[in-house]
């Protein structure tokens, strides 16, 4: 924003200087078009497109693997039959069973391709949704974005039912990832019941990708299972278990492995703090957190809920030293205690251009509505002061100090 730099009356020569000075310093973006801003904000929607895409890919991969497996089985079924000495009847029966299998496979393929189609549809709906954002009319779209962000938060916090309710009532099912989180829910619920089986199954399902990201999720689950065997004083089984499932991790995680194996010597009621923590219930919470992180990574989600990310950035953008004063306007979120609390550890905003807001009308003071100074240095917009003068016979009363003066005593301020 730039204001008229023409000084009070007697000097016109100053204008061109200040005009060029501000123009070269920092050209303000044109106010008329929000398009670049919209484009920038759409670039933040990576997760929105990535999650259904990863889901789609996963289904494709799984379906393909299943088909390959079944086909190989049928082919080797023929090879085996050719090698074996079958009676004519057995050979016919065998071939008939293979035909049945192929029919079953075809049905499965059709089912699978229907599921793939639905997920592809979801990917496309999201692309369309991004495309539907219209710079001139964003309120509806922004409203939906807020809801999407809230559903994401609730899903991550395991408030599934509320998330589903909100998504349904606003018809957002295709724009949020409830189905993906259902998969996580099963694993998390089980972990909270001290059951690692679904988590291990999940690790097996995603083995190659977890390996690529050097995840040690499975190792941690195995360690926990081992600890549970020690807790139950099932030492022989614990040792067998360790040989089978922990030893393979020895090459990369020797230290942790040794520490856990050592619990065999200490048992569950150990007072030694190094080992005591391993038996604590919060280890299970830790596993839940660990799983959530792995899960988010795998689907290309941010590790933090979207809400936290946007909220933090927004609080910083809005945070000014004036926000913590009593006269912070109630339209400012930071006038509220809850928002102030969250903003406390965050940095203040930074702006490049002066932006003056009239204390009385809350309107921007610019060339159209320039700021005027009272004799005590308090500044208000021309509009507000004119209005006040009209109502009070030319008298001006400073709303913050009570000072009374005449409209003629005001001077204009020129802000560049």
């Amino acid at each position, binding site marked *: 924003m730039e204001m008229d730099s023409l000084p009070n009356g007697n000097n016109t020569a100053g204008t061109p200087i200040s005009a060029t000075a501000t123009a070269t310093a920092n050209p303000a973006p044109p106010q008329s078009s929000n398009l670049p801003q919209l484009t920038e904000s759409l670039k*933040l929607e990576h997760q929105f*497109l990535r999650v259904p895409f990863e889901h789609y890919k996963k289904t494709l991969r799984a379906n393909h693997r299943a088909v390959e497996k079944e086909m190989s089985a049928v082919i080797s079924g023929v090879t085996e039959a050719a090698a074996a000495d079958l009676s004519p009847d057995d050979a016919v029966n065998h071939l008939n069973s293979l035909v049945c299998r192929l029919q079953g496979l075809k049905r499965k393929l059709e089912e699978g391709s229907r599921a793939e189609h639905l997920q592809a549809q979801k990917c496309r709906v999201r692309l369309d949704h991004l495309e539907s954002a219209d710079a001139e009319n964003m309120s509806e779209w922004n409203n939906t974005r807020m809801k999407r962000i809230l559903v994401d938060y609730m899903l991550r916090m395991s408030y599934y039912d509320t998330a589903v*309710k909100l998504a349904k009532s606003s018809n957002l099912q295709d724009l949020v990832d409830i189905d993906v989180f259902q998969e996580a829910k099963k694993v998390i619920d089980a972990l909270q019941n001290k059951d690692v089986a679904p988590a291990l199954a999940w690790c097996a399902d995603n083995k190659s990708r977890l390996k690529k990201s050097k995840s040690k999720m499975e190792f941690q689950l195995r360690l926990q299972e081992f600890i549970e065997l020690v807790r139950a004083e099932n030492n022989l089984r614990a040792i067998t278990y360790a040989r089978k499932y922990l030893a393979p991790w020895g090459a990369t995680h020797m230290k942790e492995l040794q520490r856990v194996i050592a619990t065999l010597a200490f048992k569950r009621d150990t007072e030694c703090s190094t080992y005591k923590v391993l038996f604590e219930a919060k280890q299970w919470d830790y596993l839940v957190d660990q799983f959530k992180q792995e899960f988010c990574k795998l689907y290309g989600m941010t590790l933090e809920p979207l809400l936290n990310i946007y909220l*933090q950035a927004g609080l*910083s953008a809005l945070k000014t030293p004036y926000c913590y004063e009593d006269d912070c306007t109630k339209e400012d979120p930071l006038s509220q205690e809850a928002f102030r609390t969250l903003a406390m550890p965050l940095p*203040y905003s930074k*702006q490049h251009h002066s932006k003056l807001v009239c204390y009385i009308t809350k309107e921007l003071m610019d060339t159209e509505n320039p700021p005027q100074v009272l004799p005590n240095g308090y*500044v208000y917009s021309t509009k507000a002061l004119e209005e006040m003068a009209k109502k009070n016979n030319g008298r001006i009363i400073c709303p913050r100090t009570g000072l009374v003066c005449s409209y003629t005593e005001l001077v204009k301020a020129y*802000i560049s």
Partner: protein
Amino acid sequence: MELSTIKDAFDRVTKKQKLSCSKTQEAIDQIRQEIESVLDTLQSANNTDHELDYKTVLNELKASFLLIAPLSQMEGTQKELNVALTKYGKLLEKHFNPDISKAYRNIDIDRHTLNQIIANHFYHQGLFEIGDHFMSVVGEPESAAIMKFPFVEMYQILEAMQNQNLEPALNWASTNGDKLAQSGSDIVLKLHSMQFVKVLQNGSREEALHYARMHLSPFATSHMTDIQKLMGCLLWTGKLDRSPYHALLSPSNWDKLAEELKRQFCNLLGQSYNSPLSVTVAAGVQVLPPLLKFMNVMAGKKNEWQSMNQLPVPVELDREFQFHSIFVCPVSKEQATEDNPPMLMSCGHVLCKQSILKMSKNSTKVFKCPYCPFDIDAAQCKQLYF
């Protein structure tokens, strides 16, 4: 943004998926046909008592599978599909910001505070059922009632207005008439005007006149032109849509009136008109892009970011997020503070105190205003309060 490129890439993925699927089906069918034709041969041999070497037939079948090579047939299309998938994934990474948490400061957000904010947002938006559900899930159903209470009446009024029923709104306005007048709102007049037009539209001139005398006359002096216009409508009873006043019938008037009512209602409640959560998130959407760009540039200095007292990059916020006056000294480019306040010079230009001290060599000499040829005496400068 190149959304069309991205969409094209995705269309390619689905095309390849369909191709791969039909190829697989073909392969399955082919194998099945081979087996079935062998079965036919075996069966017809059975019927004719013709001697047949089963082993040879099965080995021939095995050989034909080797020839058909169904798995490698599928592999080709599968590979093409994989290429398309990889390409689409890369496009997403290129055109979007793959990690928007790069500018996130790792601090614990108080969950209770955040949940209160979220619940308040639901009530503020009139999503009462969701709000109640949320509060019971997070285990704070007690505070729900207090939080939603003020908004319940507002949404009842707004809902009635959607059905063009002004009764609840008028009741509210008459109960709060004094407070509304005090805050300078003319919503009462606006509601009565709307009701008057409604009465008039339904045809009865007498009724409308009666309504005007009852409810509009108190505004006769303060809002003379508005009232005159409304009375003019009386001449067009039954054909208001063809009158000079047809704009009064526009359905958008109802939306405007509802918005104004919400504004005044929130104002009396001491609540903000917009949900503070929505406002903050919208502001976050605006600052994240420059912030993320900055984080990419100074990737190595992540620790510095964790302790910064002010954002490292200036943000350009829309008018709707500007709640306080910000003065940036045009000379030093620094934001004014209590210790370095804005000062009005005798020419009318404004600089920060430290810039003035610098240019005046600590108030020892007169200097020229950088924006006009005026000579400035530091002692004559006046501190401003925006």
